[in-house]
């Protein structure tokens, strides 16, 4: 385990360095620069030049990259260009909201996928299996932006059960916050839940076809016990990989979902940052996303090897 971490950590760091380089370059490849968005629609070239030099955008690229890394290492990310305020505060606020959304969605993914998969894989009644099949496929077949708008129309405008969008602090107003969270989390969770349910169901079915299950059945072990004690655990490793992949989708999907539900998270911040070419915000944020992702992958791999001892620590 320790050797595992020792091997993985340096490579994780390498990914971060590479990512920082990529992020920096990609942002500058995208046309349009922060000075023009700061200067506004009717600015003259003089104003833009003044702003460019104030922001240090007239420096050579390498110098800009170095000074960014310097700021990162010093821990003080400095002010944002266009959005206003300190980058640290902006990311801090957004992170809280996105963490709520993503964790809420993740919980829903597991809560939806696990029963569906077990039901679908083990039910001897064909209509049940077919229904599970239809649900998982149907959910996958509707784009999330349509699901989101439909959810709002049904639950907010139609039945007036849930607010159409917005956000409350989970600490200050937990009961209200849960209602604000419900629809965006569900919208975010549905496609991932369907994917996970599908893999899990396949995994369980495959495990049920294995010899040892036949042996166990022959030995008189109850079917319920076989599914929960034997088949499901054997289907978990690959499901965890899928779940790990889905976390990436959840974070990426947050951009769309946060937009539809006016959820003030990192997805919104990143979009704002890109739209206004707020380099510091986008750079720091993308790097953070990569870092979180790398950490999640590390944990996924740990879980994977822990769940399936046939795989050696490498």
């Amino acid at each position, binding site marked *: 385990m320790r050797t595992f971490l020792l091997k993985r950590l340096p490579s994780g760091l390498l990914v971060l360095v590479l990512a920082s380089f990529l992020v920096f370059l990609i942002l500058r490849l995208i046309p*349009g620069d922060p000075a*023009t968005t700061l200067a506004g*629609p009717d600015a003259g070239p003089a104003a833009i030049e003044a702003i460019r030099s104030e922001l240090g955008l007239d420096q050579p690229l390498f110098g800009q990259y170095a000074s960014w890394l310097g700021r990162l290492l010093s821990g003080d990310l400095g002010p944002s260009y266009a959005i*206003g305020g300190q980058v640290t505060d902006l990311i801090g606020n957004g992170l809280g909201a996105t963490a709520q959304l993503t964790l809420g969605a993740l919980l829903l993914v597991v809560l939806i996928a696990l029963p569906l998969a077990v039901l679908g894989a083990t039910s001897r009644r064909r209509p049940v299996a077919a229904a599970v099949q239809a649900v998982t496929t149907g959910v996958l077949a509707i784009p999330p932006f349509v699901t989101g708008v439909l959810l709002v129309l049904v639950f907010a405008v139609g039945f007036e059960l*849930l607010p159409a*969008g917005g956000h409350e602090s989970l600490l200050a107003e937990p009961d209200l916050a*849960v209602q604000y969270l419900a629809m965006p989390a569900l919208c975010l969770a549905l496609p991932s839940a369907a994917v996970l349910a599908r893999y899990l169901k396949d995994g369980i079915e495959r495990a049920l076809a294995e010899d040892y299950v036949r042996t166990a059945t022959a030995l008189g072990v109850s079917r319920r016990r076989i599914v929960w*004690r034997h088949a*499901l655990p054997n289907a978990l490793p690959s499901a965890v990989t899928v779940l790990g992949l889905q976390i990436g989708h959840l974070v990426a999907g947050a951009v769309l979902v946060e937009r539809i539900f006016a959820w*003030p998270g990192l997805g919104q911040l990143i979009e704002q940052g890109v739209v206004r070419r707020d380099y510091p915000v986008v750079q720091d944020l993308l790097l953070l996303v990569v870092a979180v992702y790398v950490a999640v992958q590390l944990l996924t791999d740990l879980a994977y090897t822990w769940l399936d001892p046939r795989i050696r620590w490498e």
Partner: protein
Amino acid sequence: MTAPPRLPTAPSRRALLRAGLAGAGLLTLAGCRSAVEHARNAAGAADAGPPRRGGVLTVATGIDVTPSLLFAQSANTLIQRLVFNTLTRYDDRLRPQPELATAWEVSPDGLSVTLRLREDVLFHSGRRFTAEDVVFAVRNLQNPARSAQLRSTAAAVTDFRRNGDFELTLVLAHPVSNLFDLFEFMIIPDRDSVEDAVAGTRLIGTGPFTLTDRKPGSSLAFARNDHYWNPGRPYLDGVEIRIIPQAESLLSSLRTGQTHLSYNVRGKDVATLRTDPQFRIHPYDTGSGAYYIGVNTTAEHVGDKRVRQAIAWAIDRDRLVQQALGGYGSVSSAPWPTSSPAYTEAGATHYRHDPDRARALLREAGAERLTLPFAHTNEAGPTAVAQILQYDLQQVGIDTVLQPTDSPTMQKQLISQSMPALWSLSHGFAQLHPATLAVSAYPFNEAKNSSRFTSPAYTDVVQRAWNRSDSDSPEALELYQRITDVLLEEQFVINLAIAGLIEVAGHRARGATLNKFGYLNLDDAYLTA
């Protein structure tokens, strides 16, 4: 050989059940209080008899403020008149009314203006407002970094003569016909904290509300300024501006009563609310909703003004207004709204939908099968507009290749004058004194514009219209007519339709107004029970 598959302990059914119950419990807890009701009641207890004191008005907007553009006309001008005040404000007929200035007198030669200021005004910091703050405000706009569109007018002020703390004379280099546009535009900031203001950390003004909290990309919260100079105002305890980028979600927030007021509902959505008694709809001629096709006059083919005129004849403006703007807008081939002194019926209807005439002009110019690049911003609305224009142009033999572009890229191309042959956008500034359009709005700027159009005749007539002290004499109107004539003849900006801001107010929100620059004024606003 390998070990048989291990059978690790799986989550037991009981554990799963427990997890499920916990989730259900959370929802039950949620059942105690409804967030929908909570948001709706945030305005406070019910109390009959308008206008009513108290409550928090929630405004929905699609785009966050850009702090660096506080002193410029930008996409979000909701906060300017909440936190700050201007010197004067226009009535419906462009006649100035007192705000921080109580009286004014322009010298007969138009070279100076003397302002009498209110003496009972305090900044949110507690400091008293004096003539010195007006001096600072004018100098602030002269700073190019503030990107103020009316900088040219501010720059015409060359000297300040103070007569006590509350009287001030501005000395001008030359007469300007749009002086009161400047006074309508220029907010008076606290000079000690102006850098904090453009950095987005602190806003200190003299206005009816103080900024208490800003969550970038999400919301702005304001509390009542208890020391506001306008007695008994504001009625509201506070204002919240909520940023909801997705148009459908913004509409839903109004429908569910989560927000009370918005100026960012698309015309086609307004059309669906028109019959709903829950909403009151009020169009303003304010804002940057004058749709146009810009032409790069140095590009191939469109350098010929007959081709540009052909484009103007080719567009079915009525269909554009119906399909892209939901009917909220008026077709016009000139930039002026009906409230403008430069508006004429003949100018507005100069170009109509006449494909045959367009084809004839193209034949005459020897440009019968053209393919031109056509840029537009990549949001849904502008993309629909561009597709309509593309189709109409195709009918007269001009094929276009659409170039969806994101706003910062477009802006950079506009400023660096590197636009493709055609593009579609919208502009503002025509709702004011006509000279403001030609000296302040970039598309029409006589000295430098994105069309790369220059003409001595245009420069001459614009300068004469601007360098005069009156703005509504027969000579002034004559000059405006000549500006219109040049614009209609040259068509470097092909005007299509004019759509101002549309106020959509839920049934509880009353008394909100906008000034000519779209600054939201909530002095007299209140929420009914």
